[in-house]
């Protein structure tokens, strides 16, 4: 038996167990439903508004773009938050005390978060299909593009989330900055409104980050092809989407192990105990 393979398999089942726990714990489930429901409400509100220069529903465009935003939320925020929390509460230290435990732990996170985002995408699309018009979900090509954008998006965002989760000292210190960063990025990434209406330097800034490309990729998968007209360069830019997301993925996969290893090296019983002390005193 190859120990690495055994740990990888254990990691996959760990992720599956965690996912089942998340989806059957009322508190966690409600958190997912509230976030998804909030966006859905905004989309239904704007379903009769048109995307400027077209007769297409702004609500539908937004729904599709929000799927891209969701990938960033789960890949970066949820991943980062879980890592900070579980570093604080000692879950990570337990993984470190077990042979190849860190591999199993991280694979478990990947499976868990991929499952959560699939769940969120499914309920968003299901609701959208019933309440909004214009979704192009009839062809296998749409689903194939959706799936590839999802996978590539997770590859680009999960390492970022893992690194952010390694850098913040505690959950309290992480929450605020992460959400602020997310809101700022969403504003310049064309999630709620086409990016072409922004000043040029903001357009460029937005296009550096994965969120814009994830939104674009989702729109290319799920909107009628005529809607490409309102995008930058009047095109879905599939090649650029792939290129930018792949670049983020490669950079992340190269850097994340270094950052994670540095973080894990510092973990010990006394560091966890010190954080527990601090948290208990803070309450």
């Amino acid at each position: 038996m190859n120990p690495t393979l055994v740990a990888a398999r254990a990691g996959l089942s760990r992720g599956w167990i965690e996912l089942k726990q998340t989806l059957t714990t009322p508190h966690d489930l409600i958190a997912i439903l509230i976030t998804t429901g909030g966006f859905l409400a905004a989309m239904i509100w704007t379903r009769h508004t048109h995307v400027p220069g077209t007769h297409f529903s702004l609500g539908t465009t937004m729904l599709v773009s929000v799927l891209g935003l969701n990938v960033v939320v789960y890949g970066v925020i949820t991943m980062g938050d879980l890592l900070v929390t579980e570093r604080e509460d000692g879950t990570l230290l337990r993984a470190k005390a077990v042979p190849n435990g860190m591999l199993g732990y991280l694979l478990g996170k990947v499976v868990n978060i991929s499952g959560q985002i699939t769940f969120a995408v499914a309920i968003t699309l299901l609701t959208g299909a019933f309440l909004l018009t214009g979704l192009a979900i009839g062809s296998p090509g749409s689903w194939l593009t959706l799936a590839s954008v999802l996978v590539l998006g997770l590859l680009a965002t999960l390492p970022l989330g893992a690194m952010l989760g390694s850098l913040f000292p505690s959950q309290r210190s992480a929450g605020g900055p992460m959400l602020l960063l997310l809101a700022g990025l969403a504003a310049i990434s064309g999630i709620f409104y086409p990016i072409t209406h922004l000043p040029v330097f903001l357009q460029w800034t937005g296009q550096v980050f994965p969120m814009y490309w994830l939104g674009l990729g989702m729109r290319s998968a799920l909107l009628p092809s005529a809607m490409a007209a309102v995008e930058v360069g009047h095109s879905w830019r599939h090649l650029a989407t792939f290129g930018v997301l792949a670049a983020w993925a490669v950079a992340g996969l190269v850097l994340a192990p270094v950052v994670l290893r540095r973080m894990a090296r510092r973990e010990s019983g006394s560091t966890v105990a010190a954080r527990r002390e601090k948290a208990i005193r803070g309450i």
Partner: protein
Amino acid sequence: MEDVLDVRDLRMRYGKTDVLSGVSFAARRGEVLGLLGPNGAGKTTTIEILEGFRMRSAGEVSVLGADPAHGGEAWRARTGVVLQSWRDHAKWQVRELLAHLGRYYAPYSTPSVTRPWDVDDLIETVGLTPHARKRVRNLSGGQRRRLDVAIGIVGRPELLFLDEPTAGFDPEARRDFHDVVHRLTDREKTTILLTTHDLDEAERLADRILILAGGTIIADGSADELGRAMSGQSEVRWSRDGQRFVRAADDATAFVRELFRQYGESVEDLEVHRASLEDTYMALVRQAEHGVPRRLTAVAA
């Protein structure tokens, strides 16, 4: 036989403070070592260096024949660490968690040691059978600590680290925990290094006691040996003509002989108490704090 633990001149320095300034000790297979010492003496630092969770500044350390700083996963599989749980794995069921963590050890089975520990047998051993299906967050404090021990030994470690394992236990939970440790050493021949503040616990569990103070080991021996090696510690109590007397005696036997020679049959209610581990401990630590650097080594006969 090869020592399971061999520590020579271990040093640890944070900034300009020396926490450990030359710690040396060894442990044979199956031995239970109790590491005692005042707060801040470096017990946790020492144990974390041996666990491979902390880098040392200097010195030679061999744990199961390897340097813990570069132990690797196969080495890790032979060690067990009992960590204090807090809110980790709150949603997991006891059995589910132990079965999961056990899986990682399976490739490290050897003809003599089958890894991991059979999960139901393990749950039985730590007395959690009625709670096997409970979620971790619904366990009581004592049950949680038993789970911590179970997680520490699920891979059938050859060497187990216990850092203040019974802090916050009620007396019953403490007794149960001691039973588990005894079972482990009797049945599994596990070598154990434990730190504690509870001298009674150290005396009950440890074959050998190490006292760490001022960054170095100031005493090394069984509780009995340490008590004997510290002279002038016996307490003699008696009564004569209805009056009670208490004296500390350097040589209790000589003192009592003299007592009978002088007062003969009027001596009643005679009691002689050898120094308790607590007395020995206090005396040694006080000595170390007043800067008398010496090492009390009681070599087993």
